[in-house]
């Protein structure tokens, strides 16, 4: 029986239709479990103390000259005193050495004590020639009975082939299945989140494991795992399978952890971790005991999507110093030196350490320290992710340049973070730091020149308290525009007045015209006074004078010496309207008539004449 495959275990020989007793072999040789082959021979039954005598080799395919092991096992109720079995003549093999071990197992079955002992004799052998060799039956005599094992076939190949080992150590499945096993239900990829509800920024741990009841040859990610909406921090990445037996839903599986990541959700809401895809090569075992080994079958397994509920951080009570940290942190600050000479920069190092989303913590706001120029920080983070969570330290290194000599106090630096366990914000602060500067460039000459010692620079202090706070409008007022108009009016008025007075002095007609209304008003008042004194003669004289004087002033005429006809002709020449001329001459005529014929004066109504005169003069 020559085998070309060497992956799957197989029974080389089974004696008396009893299944192989793997238990007897377990733990003796783990290096070559995959290549284990056993041969078993049961002792013929006889006598009361029945024992089992079996032979097995650790491999049935060996390289030429390579060491392999032959194990002879004696099992029974009390076999500790069993003699060493005798080896058959081994012409094709060299015996390299031998050793033996004993074990006893006591068990209670149905109230009875049952004692099982076993003695294992191990021989180191190596083959002397190529081909199929046979280890002949081994014999044992015990308590007068003879036992014999079955012969074992060994195929000897060239050395390299016989040493072939499975690549990424797939462990045997839960017992070598005797028939083709369906993939469905026996192979899946599990993705387990440590928590289903987290706050934004609070890390959770995702475990991805391959669970199988089949034999896996090898595997690899079908596509690189992506975690959209999360910041992923690697905790563990498998580079080989490491199967552990676990019971899942009542079935035994071999489980190998493939990947563990810490995930930090970046935004609130329902986030879904998309299915991860893994390709595996499943080894389908032999159809029958002596059939060909199964071919490997490529299978793609996907995990189920994992839904995570991400809760937004509460807005209520969020401190102004909050810099994005979620977890539990401490803060510390140090200055590399306490004193700076000649404006040399100091280094202010602020460290935030603890458990949580260390990488996402932003720089703390630093108070302005007058006289110190604090530059943008250099940021480093040192994060270790473990199954317990993410821990680490974020370091902000601020260069600080003194601008003036003096002592400075850097006030406590505060940050706030959210503690998801306490569901509250916490504010932490460093201690205040002191430093001093000497020899700063700008203030040095001042010290020497004036003897003043400049200790530092700061903004000027606030203005004092006020009794009332006057509002100063931003826009300029409107009233200057009124002033501009009035001023222009003033200049215009001056110009007009100047021209007016010039004309008054040079133009007689203009001056008479300007004066005429004032004079006629005076004469009319005089006439009115006469009327009140019942001096009819005087009244008519004054009235006639007023009319003639006014006409003279108005039209620049010498009216005193004019007759009625001359006046009429002059007025007509000056294009005075005919009815006005008629009215005026009528009044003048009446006045003269009344003055010189006293009887008539009483008959006429002087009041009515006065009104007529006033109206007529207003017309001109």
């Amino acid at each position, binding site marked *: 029986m020559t085998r070309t495959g060497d992956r799957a275990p197989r029974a080389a020989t089974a004696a008396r239709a009893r299944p192989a007793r793997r238990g007897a072999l377990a733990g003796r040789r783990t290096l070559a479990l995959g290549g284990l082959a056993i041969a078993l021979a049961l002792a013929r039954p006889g006598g009361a103390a029945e024992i089992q005598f079996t032979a097995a080799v650790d491999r049935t395919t060996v390289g030429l000259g390579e060491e392999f092991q032959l194990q002879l096992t004696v099992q029974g109720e009390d076999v500790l005193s069993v003699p060493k079995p005798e080896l058959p003549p081994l012409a094709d093999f060299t015996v390299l050495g031998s050793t033996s071990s004993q074990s006893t197992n006591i068990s209670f079955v149905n109230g009875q004590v049952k004692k099982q002992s076993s003695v294992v004799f191990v021989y180191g052998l190596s083959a002397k020639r190529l081909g199929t060799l046979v280890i002949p039956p081994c014999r044992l005599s015990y308590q007068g009975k003879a036992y014999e094992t079955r012969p074992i076939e060994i195929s000897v190949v060239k050395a390299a082939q016989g040493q072939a080992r499975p690549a990424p150590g797939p462990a045997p499945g839960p017992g070598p299945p005797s028939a083709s096993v369906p993939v469905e239900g026996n192979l899946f990829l599990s993705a387990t989140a440590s928590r289903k509800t987290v706050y934004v920024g609070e890390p959770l741990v995702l475990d991805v494991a391959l669970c199988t009841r089949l034999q896996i040859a090898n595997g690899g990610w079908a596509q690189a795992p992506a975690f959209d909406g999360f910041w992923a921090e690697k905790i563990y990445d498998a580079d080989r399978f490491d199967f552990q037996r676990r019971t899942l839903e009542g079935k035994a599986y071999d489980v190998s952890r493939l990947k563990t990541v810490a995930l930090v959700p970046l935004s609130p809401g329902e986030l879904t971790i998309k299915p991860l895809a893994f390709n595996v090569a499943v080894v389908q075992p032999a159809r029958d005991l002596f059939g060909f080994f199964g071919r490997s079958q490529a299978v793609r397994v996907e995990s189920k999507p994992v839904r995570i509920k991400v809760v937004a951080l509460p807005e209520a009570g969020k401190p*102004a110093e909050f810099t994005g940290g979620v977890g539990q942190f401490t803060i510390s600050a140090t200055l590399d030196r306490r004193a700076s000479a000649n404006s040399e920069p100091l280094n202010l190092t602020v460290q935030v350490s603890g458990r949580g989303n260390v990488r996402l913590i932003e720089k703390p*706001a*630093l*108070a*302005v320290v*007058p006289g110190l*120029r604090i530059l*943008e920080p250099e940021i480093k983070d040192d994060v270790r992710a473990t199954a317990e969570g993410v821990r680490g330290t974020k370091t902000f290194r601020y260069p600080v340049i003194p*601008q003036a000599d003096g002592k400075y106090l850097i006030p406590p630096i505060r940050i706030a973070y959210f503690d998801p366990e306490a569901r509250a914000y916490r504010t932490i602060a460093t201690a205040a730091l002191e430093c001093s500067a000497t020899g700063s460039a700008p203030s040095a000459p001042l010290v020497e020149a004036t003897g003043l010692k400049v200790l530092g*620079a700061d*903004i*000027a*202090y*606030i*203005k*004092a*308290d*006020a*009794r*009332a*706070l*006057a*509002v*100063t*409008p*931003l*826009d*300029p*007022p409107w*009233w*200057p525009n009124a*002033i*501009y108009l*009035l*001023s*222009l009016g*003033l*200049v215009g*008025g*001056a*110009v007009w*007045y*100047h021209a007016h007075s010039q004309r008054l002095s040079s133009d007689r007609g203009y001056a008479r015209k300007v004066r005429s209304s004032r004079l006629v008003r005076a004469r009319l008042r005089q006439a009115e006074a006469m009327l009140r004194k019942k001096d009819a003669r005087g009244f008519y004289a004054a009235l006639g004078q007023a009319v003639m004087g006014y006409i003279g002033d108005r039209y620049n005429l010498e009216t005193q010496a004019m007759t009625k006809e001359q006046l009429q002709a002059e007025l007509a020449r000056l294009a005075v309207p005919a009815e006005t001329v008629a009215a005026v001459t009528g009044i003048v005529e009446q006045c003269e008539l009344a003055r010189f014929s006293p009887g008539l004066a009483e008959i006429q109504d002087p009041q009515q004449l006065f009104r007529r005169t006033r109206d007529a003069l207003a017309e001109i």
Partner: protein
Amino acid sequence: MLANLLLVLALAAGPAGVYNEGNRLYARKDYAGAVRAYQQALAAGPNADAGYNLGNAWFKSGKIGKAIVAYRRAWYLEPRDADIAANLAFARGYRVDKVLTLPSPLARGLDRALHFLSVREAAWLAAACFALAALSLSLWILRRWTAFLAAAAVLAVLFGLCLGSQQAWLGEVSARPAVVVVPEVSAQSGPGEEFKQILLVHDGTEVRVREARGGYLLVQLPGGSGGWVPKDAVEPVYPR
């Protein structure tokens, strides 16, 4: 909480009460409380002292850009106040971005001369000079005394200077100056996030707003370079 209560109590005393309360909070180094108080005092209307103290409170809170805005508003009202000028220069020294182009000494001297008077003083004095010049001219017209003409000429020159100062202030306002009030913002080549980032400007950098479109402003730096920034990233010195 206590500070808020005190503010409410001080509100009853009017803007001066809130302002005085702000001074007390400032003295106790509660700069955030002082900022709130001064802002409330200024809600009644602009005031140089309250604006200056607000600038101090912002500066002490580490907000250089906000401090520069407050100082510039106070300077607009009281341009000859030495404290305002000193603290404005001090705050400008803390900016990350340095001034790209320095004006010549002559231009700076002219600028200081034109901003010697505040805009209201300039408007007031210009009107007074104009009125007096007009009066002198009128007297000269009527009386022909040369002294009046000379006085009118001098007053006309003074009027021209005051008018120039007033125009300088109006030009300053119409230039729409603004200050970056966020720690860092990138100016983009267009009004939107998708455009290319072309410039990184920091807290306190003084810019001119040239155009507003959507939630974005086109700002220009003194050197001439500029770009679009989100509206909230800058605060105009003279809000309209």
